[in-house]
């Protein structure tokens, strides 16, 4: 029994291996950073993989402009602390330039617009591997992802024609103009992430812990109020104690009514929950294959 790793250490070791493969096989990788817990764990793993060197790739944020303020503050503090490079793809800029058209109506979200911004930024910064925090347990289309996921010259994913991936041999060969999305957290579950955050004492944005906020309810999901959130007359803004289980931008992030103000409480809350973390992500609920369709186009 002596030479056994526990499951978190085995997952950690696998992710570190994948990140080092990326640094070794690609010329210009970047780590997609949203300010959510998965990308924060990714940064932590990258620090472990390359210590005592600094991260060999920049953090790469696709900014919808509809962020929780706390996310941006957290991002900037982290970047400063690590002395990391930060590159930003701005959805607002893409709207201003006419690259994309903003959705209209109450359910309008900038979620879909991120794809164009992401692909534009990948081209602009000549990124050949974008490390993402996607996990296979999140969603059924994600369950089909490879660790090294090939994207053609249009940034598209072809899920029916993926490269076989065996053992821990990762094939990052590609032609000019193509790129890879790499998912070191493929085998982690939501619970693994939280247990690891607890084990390693990783700092998180305050949004994950309970706090008082102006919210309103729509189709059974609590949303944060913000100037750009269009509300119907029947949607009354009230103050509630809430926290985020997952962080996207404000328009697609459902909030959990919760009193959990520390990691132990969050872990017990998740252990007892009967709904997946993306169950309140409006972006996934649009259709049965919303995620697959977006991913084929080049989404995260």
């Amino acid at each position, binding site marked *: 029994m002596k030479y056994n790793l526990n499951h978190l250490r085995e997952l950690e070791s696998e992710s570190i291996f994948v990140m080092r493969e990326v640094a070794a096989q690609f010329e210009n990788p970047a780590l997609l950073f949203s300010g959510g817990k998965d990308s924060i764990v990714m940064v932590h793993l990258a620090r472990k993989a390359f210590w005592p060197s600094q991260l060999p790739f920049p953090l790469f944020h696709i900014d919808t402009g509809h962020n929780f303020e706390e996310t941006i503050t957290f991002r900037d503090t982290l970047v400063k602390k690590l002395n990391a490079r930060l590159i930003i793809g701005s959805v607002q800029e893409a709207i201003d330039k006419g690259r994309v058209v903003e959705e209209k109506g109450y359910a309008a979200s900038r979620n879909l617009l991120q794809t164009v911004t992401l692909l534009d930024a990948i081209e602009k910064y000549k990124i050949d591997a974008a490390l993402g925090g996607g996990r296979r347990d999140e969603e059924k289309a994600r*369950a089909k992802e490879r660790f090294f996921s090939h994207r053609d010259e249009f940034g598209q994913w072809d899920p029916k024609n993926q490269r076989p991936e065996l053992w821990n041999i990762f094939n990052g060969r590609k032609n000019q103009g193509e790129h890879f999305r790499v998912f070191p957290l493929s085998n982690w579950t939501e619970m693994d992430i939280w247990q690891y955050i607890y084990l390693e004492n990783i700092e998180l944005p305050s949004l994950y812990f309970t706090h008082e906020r102006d919210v309103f309810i729509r189709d059974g999901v609590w949303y944060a109020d913000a100037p750009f959130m269009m509300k119907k007359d029947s949607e009354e803004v009230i103050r509630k104690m809430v926290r985020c289980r997952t962080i996207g931008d404000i328009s697609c992030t459902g909030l959990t009514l919760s009193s959990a103000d520390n990691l132990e409480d969050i872990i017990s809350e998740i252990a007892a929950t009967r*709904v997946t973390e993306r169950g309140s992500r409006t972006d996934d609920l649009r259709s049965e294959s919303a995620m697959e369709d977006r991913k084929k186009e080049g989404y995260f």
Partner: protein
Amino acid sequence: MELLRFTTAGSVDDGKSTLIGRLLYDSKSIFEDQLEAVKRASIRKGNEQINLALLTDGLRAEREQGITIDVAYRYFATPKRKFIIADTPGHVQYTRNMVTGASTANAAIILIDARNGVTEQTYRHSYISSLLQIPHLIVCVNKMDIVNYEEKVYEEIRENFSAFASKLSVKDIRYVPISALKGDNVVVYSENMPWYGGGTLRYILENIHVGSDWNHLDPRFPVQYVIRPISDKYHDYRGYAGRVAGGVFRKGDKILVLPSGFISTIEAIDLFEQELEEAYPPMSVTLRLKDDLDISRGDMIVKENNIPKVDQDIDVMLCWMNNKPLTPGTKYYLKHTTTDVRCMVKEIKYKVDVNTLNQVDDGADLKMNEIARVALRTTKPLFFDSYNQNRQTGSIILIDEGTNNTVGVGMII
């Protein structure tokens, strides 16, 4: 808590989806919104029962056609273990997917329909599991409810299978009679089969000893990445990052570097801000050596008295994964541990019929889903072990030089 990776293979109607559904459902790993989504989709498709296959068949094309095309990964945990299931299709035209799912598995579940007994598909799944050196096979005799839970049926299948299994190289085979549909012996002991004295499937999965699945005898450290910080504080730091592929490395150990043959001593084993006394598979660490040597990615750190094979000529059991067949004389990129070389296919020695395990001597090429013993010649020597000794240092992939696709995967003999 430990991690156990297992694979299942199967086709429509053999109860595989029901079994996985039950393992997940009974360990509370299916969430309400997932179940709701599956219910909605089942109704839309006109299914009478909730179709649990829709949980794993994640792609639109798979749901439309009602088939599993690719490997799907599912996750669940019990208080004792965390599990990763690689769920693969079972037909012969999906051999490559079964091989993929098997490559990282500690255990394989072989499902046998109690009404049909051991079939061609059983042979195929078992052979692939054995070829990929999955250490533990769990033979589930399913649909026991339909054969009135008769011991005789189970015993006969068990005898037939173990006669066949003597041809395989699997270390550990377990048998369990179940009904995935009714739940007998999956998670809860069945009262319908008092004659069965073993554990439930979940009990077996929770208790199989996985610690010995890694090679702890032959020290192998493929250098993955060289860490040289550009900072005042760590000016002289030079670390060799990688994942231990075999054996145990301790601080103070005398080591040998391949291919140079340089000898040095391990000064420290780093993992982030922590210094470790020892490292073993599958740990990702950084080794620092006493001497400044020229070591780069693709080199291998080993021990002087335990050196892997070093050769440019290797024989592999190759599974072909691509539409375009392999022909002798063709050149490919070859990836092995952290090394990239080119290679030429010298000869296809024989093919293996995955249904009968017979050697067949046909054809000048190797088609998709076929498995053959193939001789390769590489441009540079590889440092390797046989796959039977070490899955990490005994495996290779072949990459097409034009498309960059992974076209073949091999187990070194």
